[in-house]
């Protein structure tokens, strides 16, 4: 039997039971389309997050106090507690020629009030460098002034959301707000754009790091953000940082230095896993579609028993009958899969129109694996009905007994 004839016969048979064929195609279409859409969402989230990270600049290093390691010595004399990161540590890092600029950060929460309005917000204590390091932008006024790190100053910069909560449409620049027991003068408002990873920069109050230390009565830093001179020397900058801190901390390497790359790859890994699991969940619907194909083909075999008997009488051997019915189920899954791909991509396009900020791009691997999965389930689940057809006794099949 010619290949072309097998195809034509199978298509003809599918056409002969149109309603049933279309319903099965629909099931497969939904299965494949959901794989495409869900993996697109996962992939989109990944791209979105990594894009946000990259916008911070890939030559960023983040220093955290403490070291991620497991130690197990006997009761330590020096104590297991790590040394705090201090402003002096931060200042000493400026010695490295690989460091372009750095911004020490203290984070805390405190009530901020103006007039009758009171709001609990995140307080960031930092320096003027933070503006460059975190690629912030201003909508009004200016950022923190260039000061010595250890000098406090009663000035602050508000996030746009905090500003509108406290001041509404009124002028905020030059006003004094109360932060816990202190007061500071508003000298700038951040731009609305400033939402960057982790912290909602709309709802913060930024003040000089020394002022924040006084406010929270603590000298230890939460982070030091360091910008290396180039992306290429980021490893050298990290080594420098470790060396300098180690010197200062009596030979103890008790800080963790994260690079943008390592953070990025961690997020990448997490979000890729998310994408895979979304794909897996959607894959279940492919399985359901496969079972539906099996069901439909079983019905087809029992409905077309006489036809199968006839084909056998006309001299079709087992393997030919098997091939004919497998081709039918393969077509059901293939056509359904193609329709599903189109539906999924169309869905992506529609979503993209509504959410232009979010990248709706279906990952290549998902398209191919959805297609392959669909065809494999079609053939896999088609095998049982096809074998049943092939093993029918022609005498029984023809007599309709």
């Amino acid at each position, binding site marked *: *039997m*010619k290949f*072309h*004839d097998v195809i034509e*016969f199978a298509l*003809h*048979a599918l*056409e*002969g039971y149109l309603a049933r064929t279309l319903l099965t195609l629909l099931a497969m279409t939904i299965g494949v389309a959901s794989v495409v859409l869900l993996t697109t969402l996962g992939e989109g989230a990944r791209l979105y997050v990594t894009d946000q990270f990259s916008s911070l600049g890939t030559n960023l290093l983040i220093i955290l106090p403490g070291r991620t390691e497991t130690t197990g010595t006997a009761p330590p004399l020096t104590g297991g507690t790590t040394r705090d990161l201090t402003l002096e540590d931060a200042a000493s890092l400026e010695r490295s020629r690989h460091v372009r600029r750095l911004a020490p950060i203290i984070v805390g929460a405190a009530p901020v009030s103006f007039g009758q309005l009171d709001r609990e917000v995140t307080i960031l204590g930092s320096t003027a460098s933070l503006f460059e390091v975190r690629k912030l932008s201003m909508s009004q006024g200016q950022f923190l002034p260039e000061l010595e790190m250890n000098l406090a100053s009663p000035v602050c910069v508000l996030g746009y959301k905090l500003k509108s909560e406290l001041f509404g449409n009124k002028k905020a620049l030059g006003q004094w707000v109360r932060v816990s027991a202190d007061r500071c003068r508003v000298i700038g408002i951040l731009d609305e754009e400033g939402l960057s990873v982790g912290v909602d920069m709309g709802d913060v109050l930024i003040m000089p790091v020394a002022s924040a230390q006084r406010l929270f009565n603590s000298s230890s830093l939460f982070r030091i953000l360091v910008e290396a001179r180039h992306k290429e020397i980021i490893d050298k900058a990290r080594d420098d940082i470790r060396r300098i801190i180690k010197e200062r901390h009596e030979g103890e390497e008790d800080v963790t230095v994260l690079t943008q790359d390592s953070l990025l790859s961690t997020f990448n890994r997490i979000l890729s896993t998310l994408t895979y699991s979304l794909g897996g969940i959607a894959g279940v619907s492919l399985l359901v579609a496969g079972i539906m194909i099996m069901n439909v083909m079983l019905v087809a075999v029992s409905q077309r028993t*006489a*036809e199968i*008997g*006839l*084909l*056998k*009488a*006309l*001299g*079709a*051997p*087992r*393997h*030919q009958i098997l091939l004919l019915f497998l081709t039918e189920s393969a077509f059901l899954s293939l056509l359904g899969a193609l329709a599903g791909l189109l539906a999924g991509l169309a869905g992506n396009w529609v979503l993209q129109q509504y959410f232009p900020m979010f990248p709706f791009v279906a990952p290549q691997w998902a398209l191919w694996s959805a297609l392959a999965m669909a065809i494999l389930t079609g053939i896999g689940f088609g095998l049982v009905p096809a074998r049943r057809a092939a093993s029918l006794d*022609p*005498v029984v099949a*023809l*007599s*309709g007994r």
Partner: protein
Amino acid sequence: MVLLRESKQVNNQGPDAFFITLGHVDRSFKLGDEMVHGLDDVSLQIKSGEYISIMGPSGSGKSTLLNVLGLLDKPDQGDYRFQGQNIMQLSEQELAGFRREKIGFVFQAFHLVPRLSAAENIALPLMLAGVSHLERTDRVQQALENFNLVDRSHHRPDQLSGGQRQRVAIARATITRPSLLLADEPTGNLDHNSSLEVVGVLEELNRQGITLVVVTHDSELGKRADRVIQMLDGKIRTDA
């Protein structure tokens, strides 16, 4: 009606002068708890070009005999030679090949594929045999002309009369130029006129050389054959 036959040479083939030889063939089925003897020690010899009718009441084993002759059913015991070939030793695939090339079937219920046109139904055995589309079209066209179906070629079975359907079925059964044509109650579902027409077609094919075996319980049709085999309870009662 033109059918090219090469049946004469079959007679000269090998030491076995007979086209078909059945020797002491048994075939029984289990129906519930009972064993039913479809065929009970049946021996039969058929020469090439014969016109045979098999008659008998229902359950007498005539259909079973036809199925065995047509290689659709395998005997439990006995000997079956088809053109000198020992059928009992053939595999499922070889049997299918024999059916495809040497045997044509005509059924009471026509068994046309409902979604295919008359022409496509006739072409079915050629398609299964892997004959090219071009050659198929030629041969099907020839068959449509031979069986007076040219104007019906694109009609589906449900658009044809009973007589036309059976003519399509006969055209399909003979499209591969088989040497044996087996007809199981070919007029069972037809009115009188259509029956005469179909019988005429079958007998014409026989005159052109095909070996024709008809199973029927219509004695009028049965008596038309050159040789009438009467069956009862799985045995051949008379053979004349």
